[in-house]
């Protein structure tokens, strides 16, 4: 993945990225079975990501809107695509102020809403401590 980051202001950031994961097609031909018995037909999975990242409107808030376009090139077949739209909100926390365990110095709680081109939508929340 290669990512270009532009910090427009201290609170506004734009990101664009492109990446690819390409198993060799020559390896896939003639060896149709994976260990889990799933057909291995995906020759490459490039993805493009355009992200508008609103960084810290407050010192402890993050907002992000992200668009992803995934394209899979099948062996001897088409190349279906998937479009994803992600809206995220994060809350930064600090153990010194929030009485969290001392092994967690800080981190972010992030909630995500996702909608794909097929009309499927879901939301999820998670926490990621600082490393």
């Amino acid at each position, binding site marked *: 993945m290669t990512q*270009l*980051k532009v910090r427009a202001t201290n609170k506004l950031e734009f990101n664009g990225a492109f990446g690819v994961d390409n198993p060799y097609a020559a390896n896939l031909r003639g*060896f149709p*079975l*994976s260990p889990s018995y799933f057909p291995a037909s995906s020759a490459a999975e490039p993805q493009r990501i355009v992200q508008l990242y609103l960084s810290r409107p407050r010192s402890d808030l993050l907002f992000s809107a992200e668009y992803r376009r995934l394209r899979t090139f099948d062996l001897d077949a088409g190349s279906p695509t998937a479009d994803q739209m992600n809206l995220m909100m994060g809350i930064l926390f600090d153990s010194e102020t929030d009485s969290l365990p001392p092994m967690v110095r800080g981190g972010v709680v992030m909630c995500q809403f996702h909608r794909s081109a097929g009309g499927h939508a879901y939301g999820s929340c998670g926490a990621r401590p600082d490393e």
Partner: protein
Amino acid sequence: MMDNVTGELPATSFERNAQAGESSGQPAYAVRASWTRSVFGMPLTLGAAGYYSRQNWVFNNHVDGWAGMTDWSVPLTKRVSLTGEFYRGRAIGGLGGGVGRSVLFSGDPNPYAQLQPVNSVGG
């Protein structure tokens, strides 16, 4: 040293079976070296890394998984930066390479089926 994962799904959710990486009896090995200097007050970093994973698949099919990686973080101006990475590897489904697959079989796994480590490239 790293957990020697290969990306395969467990054969059953009720029993724990050693998978190909663990069956090799050794961990995976990785090393990374990088060079950093300050540009526009931000770090410019260039890195290179290597990875090796010995795997023992069914019927004593041994596979040497490996990967060579390079990564970069380059400030272009005070407000614009470029980061990225590139890899070339073999049997690295455990790291997500090859769309998550380390090896393929020519048929149902049996003593006569051929095994093909998946080469992959990406970044």
